Each structure stands twice: as structure tokens, then as C-alpha cells.
């Protein structure tokens, strides 16, 4: 299957940003340990043009651009279980079929 590509947009090192990053770390290290993952963290205070290009409204925002379906999640990603559910991860056995289409 294809690589899991995630972008997290934060506005400075706020408690919300910390919580989101922690949840993501936990997910990547435990639940998705066997998958190829790429997580980029963008601080919109340092790089507002990126936020403009991606039309980011709220922070934190997590964007999953691969594998499909595309997902945009806002919030501090309270629990790993909810996050996996919303992201449709780990990919089900059938999802590799979808990728080929």
C-alpha cells in the first residue's frame, strides 16, 4: 500500500498543539508501527503562506493526503481510537484495492 502522508498545522506551541502531536506520535509509534508514515508539522505563525495555500482555518488541523480518502480534521485529536476511526486507518485489507483504481 502507499505511504501514509499527514500534515499537521499548528499555531505556535500551544497546549492544544502539544496534545495533538502527542496523540499522533502515539498513533504512529504503536498502532501504525508497521506502516510507512510521513508526518510534517507546520507552524502557521512561522509560515503563514503555507496556511494560506492550504486554506487552513482552525488549528490544529490535520490533513491526510494519502492514502485516500482525503481527510481534514480540526481539533486536538483527543483520542487515538477516534483518530484512527476518522482517518480510516490502518488501511483495511480491501483498501489496497481502492488504491489501484
Amino acid at each position: 500500500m502507499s505511504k501514509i502522508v499527514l500534515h499537521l498545522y499548528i499555531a505556535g506551541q500551544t497546549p492544544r498543539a502539544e496534545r495533538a502531536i502527542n496523540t499522533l506520535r502515539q498513533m504512529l509509534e504503536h498502532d501504525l508501527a508497521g506502516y510507512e508514515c510521513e508526518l510534517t508539522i507546520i507552524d502557521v505563525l512561522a509560515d503563514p503562506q503555507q496556511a494560506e495555500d492550504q486554506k487552513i482555518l482552525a488549528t490544529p488541523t490535520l490533513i491526510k493526503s494519502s492514502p485516500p480518502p482525503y481527510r481534514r480534521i480540526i481539533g486536538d485529536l483527543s483520542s487515538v481510537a477516534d483518530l484512527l476511526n476518522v482517518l480510516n486507518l490502518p488501511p483495511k485489507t480491501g483498501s489496497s484495492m481502492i488504491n489501484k483504481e
Partner: protein
Amino acid sequence: MCADHIERLPTGITGFDHIANGGLPKGRTTLVSGTAGSAKTVFAAQFLAAGIKRGEPGVFVTFEETPEALRRNMLGFGWDIARWEAEGKWAFVDVSPQPEEEIVELGTYDLGALLARIEHAVRSIGAVRLSLDSLGAIFTRLNDTRVVRNELLRIVSTLRRLGVTAVLTAERTQEYGEIARYGVEEFVSDDVVILRNLLEDEKRRRTVEILKFRGTSHQKGSFPFTVIPGEGIHVIPLSAIELKQRSSNVRTTSGNAELDRMCGGGFFRDSIVLVSGATGTGKTLMATTFMAAGVRQKERSLLFAFEESRDQLFRNAIGWGIDFEQMERDGLLRVVCNYPEVTSLEDQLIFMKAEIERFRPQRVAVDSLSALERVSTVKGFREFVIGLTSFIKHQEMAGLYTSTTPTLLGGSSITEAHISTITDSIILLRYVELFGEMRRGLTVLKMRGSSHDKDIREFTIDSRGMHIGRPFRNISGILSGQFTHIAPSEIERLSAMFRDEEGTETAETN
């Protein structure tokens, strides 16, 4: 005008700065609230466009329409947003809904990214102005209204820190009621402007009202405005312009020597004369001779005709020996024929002003006001007449309006009831029934600042125009339409009676 210390930023929106006593409070955020279709987005965009024309860059934060749609829609007002973007004068912060994109909320969030983008946009082009359209759209996109509210408060305080003057638009559900949905006025309440799009007597009427400017002055009440292609919002600030004109003692001819004599030497140069009469009494003839007299003494003359077609008007004039076509060719006359139903009265006023400004006439005639009255509400009509009158007088032009009375005999029209106090002179044309024959009578009812002939004079119309004759002597009740014939012997007897008592004569011979 405003004796307070709060600095203003002129918006550049025609007429708005007048009612705002100079402009929006500088460096503050003004809430512009209105129902759907009340021209909020136009106001927001015009605020920036007008700023750019004054060398002040602006940021447009859009929550509803996409930048592409705005660039396209605003082009009709003459605002080339794409060019301004390329020149670094206009920047979008695009927060419009992205199609096929669902946002999932998981945990708590803030609008830090939006704030960063706004700040970035303001700094990168050195924005002086900012518009955000519209607040309600954020609330419908995000579930946590408490967060949105807190974050908007943060945005407003950031704007203040950045020193930009901002316009935030918000939705209302009804024309009269709470200021805006979602209680947004709680955090942007210092300065509130309301746009209305009312349905009055089946006619659309747009008005703008400045509800408050905290700590500073503005004109009270609502003012009509219109949205016109190539310009945008155009506010008609009536109270501010009402009748502050100088008046002159210079006389000018009406085109009829006898009428000039009746008026004590002609019309005043910067006065408005109202000619009232039933259909067929000779109103258009008076307007026509008034125009021709202007042209004859090399004055530029402008005629607005709302009742008759151009052909008809020109044919009539030829019938009275006046060649309008030649006068137009000579550049001294301009005849504008217009069907009043095609546009609202607000737009008509702006159109007429534009015509006057372009042609720069010394005299203007409107035939007839009654035709315009048909397409408006009573209030709208009165505002129109005040607006037009004050404009004409400011330009130091002589004006002549005609008005049609609804009944053949006597009576007065609603038109007159509303405008007679505004005009300087009133001339009545009336049918007079005399021993089974219809005759015509004319009287000068009012002539501000001058004495005038008080008689009711008979007049006739032939191929050379209007001829004013002798006063009616043996009839009374002409103006009311309730005629009473008095035998000549009775008149003599009455005159003799007064002569006996006072030792002076009453029945003057004319």
C-alpha cells in the same frame, strides 16, 4: 462638522461619508449588518476598492464567495481586483467553503491559523483597510460557537493592534429586530451600520442607517441608497443636502413675455418653478417654450421628458414654431426621453444628476414629475424631489417641473402636496367652464421673493404658442372647480359698494 477627537477614515462610498460625518472611525472595526441581498458584500468590496483609489491597500477575508467569484462579480462595478492583486494593493484571505471537503472536528481547536493568515496578509501588502464577509458563515461552518465567538474577539483585537480600519459583515434574519445573528454585536458593537432592502408598496427600497458610532457623531435615521453598475453603492444623503442654497435676484425669461410680467419680471435664475395643470392645459408647451427661451439667449438647456416620446415631443415643438432638432445640433439643447417604469427612483435621480453634470445646463425642465410619482412610494418620491431640487439649485440653474392634476377641473395632485413647499414658484393652469365652453386659465400662485400678478388670466394656445389674455372677471371658484358665474352688473354693484365705503376703487381695469 464633527467636533470630537475620533479620527475618520473616508470610505469613498458616495454619500456615505456625508452621513457618517466624514467616514468610519479610523482604526476601529465596524459591523455592517443586513438581510440576504442587502448589498453587504458590495459594501465590503467597495470599502476596499475606494481605499485603493486613495492609495490604501486592503485585505478581503471571504467566508462565503470564492475569490474567483468575487473577482468576476465585482468587475461590473469597475473594480479590477485581479489587477490590484497583481499590483499588491488587494489580497484575499480565502476561507470560502471548499467543495467536496468535509471537516471533521475532533477535540478542541482555535482559529489561530486564520488569525495568522490575516496578520500575514495585512503585513505583506501594508493594508490600511480590511473587509471580512461574512461572520455568519463562520458560525455555520464550525460547530463550537463559543470557540468561534472567542476567536472573533481575538481577531477584532488583532485588527485593532494592526491599526487597520475594518468592516465586518453579518446577517440579519429580518429588517427590524436583533442587529445580527449569533449575537455577534456583543463583540463588535462600537460601530454598527445597518443595510436594509425593504419592500414598500410592492417596490424595493434600499436604505442605510448608522445605528451607532461609539463616542462620536453621525447623521441619524435611514438614507436611501442604490447599487449601480460601474459605481457600486451610492447613498443619497437627503437631510445633509436639504435646501442650503444661496438665492439670486437675477431674473431669466420664461419664454413668454406676458408670463414674465405676471411673475414680476421673469423667473429667478436659481429657482424651481412648478407648473401644475390637468392633461392638455399646456404644461408641455410651457416646458418647451422655457427650453427654447434658454437656447435663444445661448443658454444650455436640458429637458427630461417622461411622458412623451422624442418624436412626439419634437413634432409638438415644431407645431409651436420651435425646432428642437436644430437646437440639439447647435449643442445648446439636450432632450432626454425616458420611460419612468424602467428603473427605480433612486437610480433615476443618479441618472439625472449624471446627465446634468455631463451637459452642464443653465436651465432644466422635467415633464412631468407625476410620471415619476407612479413608480415610487410617497416617501421615496419626496426624497427624490428634494434630492433633485437641491442638486439643481446648487448648480445655480433655473428649473421647471410640471405636474399633472388628476381631475380636469380644479383640484390638486398628491405631487403638489409633497413638493409645493420645496419649489419657489407655482403656476396653475386650469380649465374654466364658461357658458358651456372650455377655456383655459392661468395664475401665478406663489412667487418666492417677489410680487406677482394675482389675477386668474385667460390664455389660448395656437401655432405660435401660448397667449395670455385678460383676467376672468365674471366667474369665481376656478381653482376649486366649483364655478359661480356672476353677472357683470353684479360686479359693478359690488365694486361701487366698496368704493362708497372706502372711497377707493377695487375693480381695477386691466
